[in-house]
């Protein structure tokens, strides 16, 4: 057996892209022709997307002050899905007034229990409309239907369900303290998990008694606008939730509005820093969930096959558009060659294509701009001297797609190791000792999440204590739950979302 493995390794060196690392070396897997599945597309004919959307302010869809619109594109087909309003500072001001009025007149007067019941209603309606929302999420954002159906939408409902229950139990949340709501919250969310990020923001805010103005990302506004309809359907009092659509300027109008008490932002570290700077000298509270460059550390004693699955999930989940993606593989030297070989084989089996197809593993890159950004990083990687491996499978001609990509021969200071790419691109580094692994893991400005793969429990605890990041997944990756706090160290952000800790940014603490 050992001899055979050695023999295989030698073969791999000769022709790395063609030969599998399986001990059954005579079986040459041809992923291109033998591994095709019949198409299994999810039907989208019952999905209702309006031709155009206005802002949702004070319980109604409200025409924008200025006649400026933007288009939301299906990144898998490059077709326009809908037009929506580009919010100006006048629109934002109108939404803030509605939110302030709702805060003063209705929402803060309501008991926690009744507030909670509204949030439970929202959770239930999301569950009822789960399939439609999942399909829209995949159409608007390009993510595989399997993920939007099994992860995004059920989790979004779960977040509302979880925080609904907190609304009348806030007195038990913070020892020695009573809580009061912060007031009006401005929330800006990214395009990678549109409805899920909305739920992370709106659910705790409402539970704690705040009212909100939320701006979805300009490439994925539709589920937020469908959520607006859900709020109306749930009978939520007017103005408690306001959705203003637009791009960066709209977001800036929210950040700088004087009558907003708290800003919650999820997005890039670059924009996060700009927001933190604009808030300087004000009394506005803020939470920032920013970028990451997650280390995924695999020790020699890990179950290699399990680790390969974990690595795949860590970086190719949602096309790698995940702030906590395991985008830096750190593998212990002794198993590096075997693991990388298996990883490449497994990458070859990933199906890149129609997000609505249930067989699809890797969907479309969210937007043209992001697609170009990723391509730029691939060029940077190559020009920095790294070795690029991409899978052989085909990608659709139309739409924005990127083959799963792996870079070896990278150094810690390479840009593709230091900077967040936000795409299906993995870098591989090796290490000898746990200390070296920790040092490399911590050697970026980020600290959002990381993974550890080992069969030894004590090693997990030692290394997870040393990795400076808000989330550590041991022998798993990319798991989320409403009870579980999420958020970064260092330049990955400030504050936590999810769980009991996720309530903290949405309350002021008073002596009890």
């Amino acid at each position, binding site marked *: 057996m050992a001899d055979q493995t050695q023999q295989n390794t030698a073969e791999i060196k000769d022709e790395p892209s063609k030969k599998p690392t399986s001990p059954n070396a005579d079986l040459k897997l041809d992923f291109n022709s033998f591994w095709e599945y019949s198409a299994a597309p999810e039907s989208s004919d019952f999905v209702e997307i309006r031709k155009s959307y206005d802002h949702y302010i004070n319980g109604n869809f409200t025409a924008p002050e200025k006649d400026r619109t933007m288009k939301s594109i299906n990144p898998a087909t490059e077709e326009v899905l809908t037009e929506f309003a580009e919010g100006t500072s006048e629109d934002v001001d109108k939404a803030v007034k509605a939110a302030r009025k709702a805060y003063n007149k209705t929402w803060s007067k309501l008991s926690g229990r009744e507030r909670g019941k509204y949030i439970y209603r929202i959770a239930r309606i999301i569950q009822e409309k789960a399939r439609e929302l999942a399909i829209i999420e995949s159409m608007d954002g390009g993510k595989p239907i399997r993920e939007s159906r099994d992860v995004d939408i059920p989790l979004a409902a779960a977040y509302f369900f979880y925080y609904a229950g907190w609304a009348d139990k806030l007195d038990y949340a913070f020892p020695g303290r009573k809580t009061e709501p912060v007031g009006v919250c401005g929330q800006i969310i990214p395009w990678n998990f549109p409805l899920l990020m909305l739920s992370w923001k709106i659910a705790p805010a409402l539970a704690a008694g705040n009212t909100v103005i939320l701006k979805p990302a300009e490439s994925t506004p539709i589920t937020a606008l469908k959520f607006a309809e859900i709020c109306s359907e749930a009978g939520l009092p007017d103005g408690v939730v306001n959705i203003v659509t637009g791009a960066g300027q709209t977001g800036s109008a929210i950040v700088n509005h004087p009558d907003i008490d708290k800003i919650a932002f999820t997005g890039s570290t670059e924009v996060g*820093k700009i927001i*933190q*700077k604009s808030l*300087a*000298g004000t009394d506005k509270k803020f939470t920032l969930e920013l970028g990451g460059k997650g280390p995924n550390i695999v020790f020699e004693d890990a179950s290699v096959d399990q680790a390969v699955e974990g690595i795949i999930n860590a970086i190719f989940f949602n096309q790698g558009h995940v702030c906590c993606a395991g985008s830096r593989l750190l593998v212990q030297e002794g198993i590096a060659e075997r693991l990388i070989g298996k990883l490449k084989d497994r990458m070859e089996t990933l199906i890149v294509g129609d997000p609505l197809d249930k067989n699809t593993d890797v969907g479309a890159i969210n937007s043209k701009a992001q697609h170009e950004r990723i391509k730029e990083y691939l060029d940077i990687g190559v020009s920095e001297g790294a070795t690029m491996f991409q899978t052989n499978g085909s990608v659709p001609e139309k739409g924005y797609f990127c083959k799963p990509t792996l870079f070896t021969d990278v150094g810690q200071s390479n840009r593709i190791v230091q900077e967040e790419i936000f795409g299906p691109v993995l870098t591989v580094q090796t290490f000898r000792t746990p200390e070296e692994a920790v040092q490399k893991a911590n050697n970026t400005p980020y600290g959002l999440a990381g993974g550890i793969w080992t069969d030894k429990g004590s090693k997990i605890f030692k290394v997870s*204590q040393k990795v400076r990041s808000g989330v550590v997944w041991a022998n798993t990756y990319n798991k989320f*739950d409403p009870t579980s706090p999420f958020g970064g*160290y260092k330049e990955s952000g*400030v504050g936590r979302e999810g769980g009991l800790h996720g309530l903290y940014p949405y309350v002021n603490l008073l*002596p009890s």
Partner: protein
Amino acid sequence: MPDRIEVLKTYKTYVGGNFPRSESGRTYPVNNRDGENIANACRCTRKDVRDAVGTARSAFGGWSSRSAYNRGQILYRIAEMLEGRKDQFTEELEKAGLKRKDALREVELSIDRLIYFAGWTDKYPQVFGTVNPVASSHFNFSSPEATGVVGIILDDSSNLLSLISTMAPVIAGGNVCVVIAPEKQPLSAISFGEVLHASDVPGGVVNILSGFRDEVIDTLSGHMNVNAVLNTVDNPEVRKLIDENASISVKRVKHLPVESWSDESLENPYLIIDFQETKTTWHPVGV
């Protein structure tokens, strides 16, 4: 002529467990409340700040890895050492212009506050940590961890108690700090370095500089190796400067303007939590 000429103390800084002078060699006169010169203090520079931050960073790994029990014992030891030097600190505060009664009270409150936070080191992780009942088959828990290097900027509202009340929760939580002493009355803060030196606090965990705030806080709050800033100066321009500098590297900022440092409300674990990160770890459950 007095029978004996008093030996005056040279006030230096406290960095890395040593008492260096400012690299600039500059000093500034410190006056008592009646405007009489009582000593000279180091007028620290941007370079002094950078050196102190570097020293603090080197001490972070060791201090944050100490057991909670050990950190608690060391904080208690600081209190013991201060108790033993009660007279020295009371006299020094009197020299600065406080009435004897007030001076004694400030020292005693400082000692008691140290003991208060010493007791929290092995309790706040229990009070603020959680086991999270996730729906999937995982064991999931969240616990607080130190943020890192904290810059502490003190105003002139107190000589000693403000330093104790800010430093104690910061280091109780496993952080290390660089403190800018009260500009007008830095002497007690600098002398407190002697107490730290005589306790079991590892060098570099607490670093104390004196000088002109305007000359040093820009560097301290903008330094990339500082993770958080605790500011007690209640001035809009200072706050804005610190906030803007913090945004360069997403620092955590706590503004803590305090009217009366003797206020008991300053004794609470949320001051520890302000300089903690929450780490959540997931473990699969299975056989």
